[in-house]
């Protein structure tokens, strides 16, 4: 697995000039995988399932590329250290460029960590991570962040999957929102 170089598009001291400070440098056309696993060149949008979706034995929720397949329900994380995770299989090589969109509610002072990880051969490998502590009031205020990988290619093996995780770092009110028709949580990722 080649090492990954992350360029944060928003506010990291000491990092090169952001390539895309407003995260708008993404194709408008999105691809959809033929099966329930990330496959096919282009950008894909992957939605997270809501709390009504039955989690697996590990407590992880699924994901889907079609909003019609998404079950609603906000994920409430109140305790410090509480996490919610979603898993999605991958079949094609990923460039690693990623755009994150988290619809969430929180109270002022709450800090969340949003991560994208690769589950590979029994290991959990971090692909991207951002800590979010933007001041907010309870309400549906989406958080957006983009990552651009330089000199990185993530070649999956059979059985690999992506894991998206949100952690409440501080405790306090934090909700990841999944509510039709307007409030979904998702990421877009480029498949080579």
């Amino acid at each position, binding site marked *: 697995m080649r090492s990954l170089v992350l360029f944060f598009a928003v506010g990291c001291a000491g990092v090169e000039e952001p390539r895309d400070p407003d995260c708008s440098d993404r194709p408008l056309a999105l691809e959809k995988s033929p099966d329930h696993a990330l496959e096919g060149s282009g950008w894909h949008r992957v939605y997270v399932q809501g709390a*009504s979706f*039955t989690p697996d034995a590990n*407590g992880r929720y699924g994901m889907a590329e079609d909003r019609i397949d998404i079950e609603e329900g906000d994920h*409430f*994380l*109140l305790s410090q*250290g*509480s996490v919610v995770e979603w898993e999605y299989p991958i079949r094609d090589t990923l460039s690693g460029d990623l755009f994150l969109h988290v619809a969430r509610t929180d109270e002022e002072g709450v800090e969340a960590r949003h991560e994208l990880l690769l589950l590979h051969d029994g290991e959990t490998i971090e692909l991207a991570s951002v800590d979010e502590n933007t001041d907010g009031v309870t309400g549906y205020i989406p958080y957006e962040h983009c990552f651009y990988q330089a000199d990185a290619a993530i070649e999956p093996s059979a059985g690999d999957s992506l894991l998206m995780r949100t*952690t409440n*770092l501080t405790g306090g009110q934090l909700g990841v929102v999944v509510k039709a028709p307007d409030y979904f949580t998702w990421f877009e990722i480029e498949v080579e």
Partner: protein
Amino acid sequence: MQYKPTYVRQFAGHGCQTRDLTGNWSLRTAALLSLVAVSCTPADEPELGDAWVVVGAGEESYSELVDEDEVPIVQGPQGGFMIALSLQAGGVVGGDPLDPTKPANPRATFQAFPSEDPEAAPLGSITVVRGLTPIGGKAFELLGTWLIFDPSLPVESYFDTDMEIVVTLVDTEGDTASDSVAITALAPLEYTVPETTQ
């Protein structure tokens, strides 16, 4: 907090047997001593290194739970309903209770299943990745994990309902322990009906 090992729950099948020691003594000695001992055969003794966990309740202090206990449901600030759960554990890497980002922190998943249909989808589920607080005797505890009931379910699904609380603890070494207890979750005396999400 006194550490109270509860091996019997975790090591089902490793039962301890009661032996009457007077069988090998003279009658006078037996009359004087009348010893009855409880002992475990060496093969049944739990190893100190084995991972174990016991589910309990409580937000700021640990409260042991036994089958048929009642646990009050509280309404949270965002309108949802929840119960405060805790655990005690041992034989695991405890991590750092002061830093939720430490890679060595173990993962604990609490789930609530309706007793009348244990195979049904959980009424609520929460996973916490957090360091455990040492409490002495090589044991740890984790307090105040809020299990929030699925807000898409009608409150009748969990108000005054018998349910099985299951906890699974996994540390970074891959050591795993689980425990369960049957409780009744009591509806709050006062609450406001939340807006439905669907």
